[in-house]
Every structure is written in C-alpha cells, then in structure tokens.
C-alpha cells in the first residue's frame, strides 16, 4: 500500500478516495479541519492552499483544503453552513495568508486567530471582492 492509499486509514475515514479533476478527493466526514491538519502534519504533507466557493442561495460556503503528498494533490472539502471555521494557523504556518485572503474575499471568519489586513486597504469591508451579494 502506498502512502497515498493509506491516507483514508490513517485519518480514520471509511470513505474511499476519488481521483477527479487532478485531485485525490477525500470527504473528511466528521473529522474537523484541525484534526485533518494535525494528520497531514504527521504524514509530512505539504500545505498548498484553500480554495473557497460560495454556494448557491443561502447554502453557505465550501472550502477545499489542499495538501501535496509526494507530488499527489489531496483535496478535502468542508461545507460551512455559517460563515466561520476553525483556523489551523497555529498548526500550519503556511495557511496564514490564504486564511486572511479568504476572510477578506468572502467574509469568512477563521476562529482562534488574529487578523491583519492583507489585500484590503483602510476602510474596505471583508467580503467585498468575491461574495455574490457584493458583486
């Protein structure tokens, strides 16, 4: 079994990995993003980015967390009913700027961390760039 194939078992996820659109997708199920981040650190996966999507109507947001494992791109989708999710900044330093960018672009709060402005200038409002209602 390769390291990639062992990932669902290491994470304690029964769902199998789906290879689609250039990404090995794995539904995290009941796993929190902080548990996932700790598990990715344990297998020495390299954090790549988070991609945020606003879902139609009032369905919230989908955040796709991506890590690289020996050249393979892993994707873990998290659906947010509200507009907040736990930050993993204290576990994974590399998420700092992307959490700040998503906070500013979509108005999503990453709880448990402090923010400083990244792209926005004084007087701008988070959510102004990419939220549907702001377009």
């Amino acid at each position, binding site marked *: 079994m390769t390291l990639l194939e062992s990932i669902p078992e290491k994470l304690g996820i029964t769902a199998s990995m789906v290879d689609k659109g*250039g*990404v090995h997708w794995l539904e995290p199920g009941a796993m929190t993003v902080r548990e996932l981040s700790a598990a990715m650190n344990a297998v020495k996966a390299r954090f*790549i980015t988070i991609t945020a999507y606003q879902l139609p109507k009032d369905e919230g947001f989908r955040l796709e967390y991506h890590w690289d494992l020996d050249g*393979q*791109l892993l994707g873990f989708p998290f659906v947010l009913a509200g507009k907040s999710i736990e930050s993993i900044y204290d576990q994974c*330093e*590399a998420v700092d*700027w992307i959490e700040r960018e998503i906070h500013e672009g979509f108005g999503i709060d990453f709880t448990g961390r402090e923010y400083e402005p990244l792209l*926005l200038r004084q007087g701008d409002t988070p959510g102004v760039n990419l939220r549907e209602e702001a377009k």
Partner: protein
Amino acid sequence: MSYKIPMGPYHPALEEPYKLDLICDGETVCDAKLHIGFNFRGIEHLAETRNYVQVIALMERVCGICSNIHTLTLCQAMEGLTGMTPPPRAQYIRVVVAELERLHSHVLWAGIAAKLMGFKTMFMTCFELREKVMDVLQAISGNRVNYSMNRVGGVNRDIDDPQAVLRMVEALEAEMLRTVIPIFTTSSTARSRCAGIGVLTLEKALSCGVVGPTARASGLPQDLRRAAPYAAYSELEFDVPVQQDGDVRARLLVRALEIMETCKILRQALTKLPPGELFAGDGKFDFTKLVTTTSTSRVEAPRGEVMYSVSWKENSRNPSRVHVRTPTFANMPAVRWMVMGARLADTPLIQASIDPCYSCTDR
C-alpha cells in the same frame, strides 16, 4: 531601543510596490511585517465575468514575466474539465515556451540580484542576455510579453523551424556558460555578498510551505516537472538542483544551475519535437457538454508551483470561479524569517532572493 523602518510600498530596493515594516535594533533587523495588495486588480472576480476564450487572455495578464505559465495552468485545468488531451507536438511546444520563460525569468532575476549586490556590469550583461531570450520568444510567438501560445486542447502557434530556435538556444547557452554561470557560482564578490545571509532553514521552509527555487535552496527537492509531470516533461531528462545552505547564495546557485538544466531541456525538446497537430479535435471548448464541476492544475513556474482551480457551471460560457495560488504568495511570508537577525543593508537583497512577483501575488 528598537525602531521601525518602513521600506516601500515605493522604494528603490523594491521592483514592485509592496511594503516591509522592519523592526530594527541598531542595524540589526529584529522582525518584519509584510504588506501586499498594492497591485490588487480583482482578477479572480473578473475571470467570472469572462467567457471561455476571454478568460485565457485575462489570466495571461496576471503576470508580466510568467504570463505563459498562467495560461498553461488555466488551459490544463480547462482540459481537465472537458477531458481533452493536447497532441504530442503541442505538449512539446508548451515545454519549449515554458522553459524559455523560465530562462528569461531567471536571467532577469540574476540581473536584479547583481544590481542589488552592487555588481552593475553583471546587471547589464544579464539584461543583454535576457533580451536575446526574448528575441527567441518573439521569433516563436510574435510577442515579447504575452505570447498567446496556449489554447484549450493545445497551442495557437507552431515552431516552424526548431533547428533555428535550437541554434539560438545554443548560442545563449554558450554565452551563459561564459559569463553568468561562472560569475554567480565562483566569484568572490557574489560569495562574500550572499553567503550566510537571509537563511531559511529546512524546518522553516517546510512549515512555511515555500516552493520553487526558494524551497530547493533550503534542501527541499520538490519540482512538479519531476514529481507530477505535465506537458512532455515525463519524456525529458533533467536534474533538479538542490542546495542545503538556505541562504541567498544557495538561491543564487539553484537558479544558476537551473539555467543550465533549462538549456538541457530545451535542446531535447527542440530535437525531439514530434510531428502532428497543434490542438486536439476541432479546437473548440464545448461548454455545452460540461456538467457543474471543478478541475485543478499545477505547474512549476520559474518561481515555483502555480495552482489553478477552475469551476464551471452547466451550460455557462463563463467560469463560476477561478482560484489562483501563485508561488510568491507561498514564498513571501518566509521573508520575515529570512530577514530576522540580518543587517538592515542586506534586506533588499534578501527579499529579492525569493524573486518576488507582486502582480502574481496580488492578482
């Protein structure tokens, strides 16, 4: 007593507008805060308002140096949506243009680094060489900045006379071997100015998630051309230069050695360029057959890994979301750790050593 020295957003040491707030104790930098966003153009939002043809032209304008890489990554992601596979000749042409772009980007960086070292003659030599690389790109594409080479399913233009391009590349390689490479790898000026400064340890490189030459100079042997080959890279032989010291000199050496590897790749790609079509099928991106879905693509740009996530809604002419993760976005936060403990006078060279691009970063 510590005091704050703002550098930027407009400053002679910075090639593009961004800001470093340096907290200093005497001449020693204790900490730094980075501020970006001065080149923010809202390109990800604009992409949602462009159709499947216009979005390629738009994303080519994310960056003025690695413009081709952005369209390559976008087109690969869009090909993932439709299941199109570019023909072999197109894959090789994509490699040729991507490597020429890497060459001119690395030589441009070498020139800027030479200027910041106080090595003005070298700056002029590098920019003269870069002009010659751009002449090759112009000979292939007709353009010097936005080459418009990529389309969904292949490329827009052929390389009619690969041997002529090969001769130009060989002349360039000889000139690099005569001037740039020996000076950057062996000269005492470059060594004394760059060795031991701006160190990014392997541990910090891992935790910051740095990419490209910045990562490889800290001992991380990651290169998507090798780890997750795209276009025709799996058919070409090349080495991935890695250095262990993590300082400015290591980043200099990695790029200098990569210039030679790029010449090696170009020679192979131009020699092996297979015959055939330039794009798959009738060359149309049939959005009417798309279901709502997302596709992701990654490539190794001159500064490191670029990733595009493209999402499309059923029967839409426009993407519903285009997310771009650029290498400087991953590398720049690490500059804080590189400048800590450095002399104030070294900070311009240290921040330049990651080859930052703020047009890419801000988008």
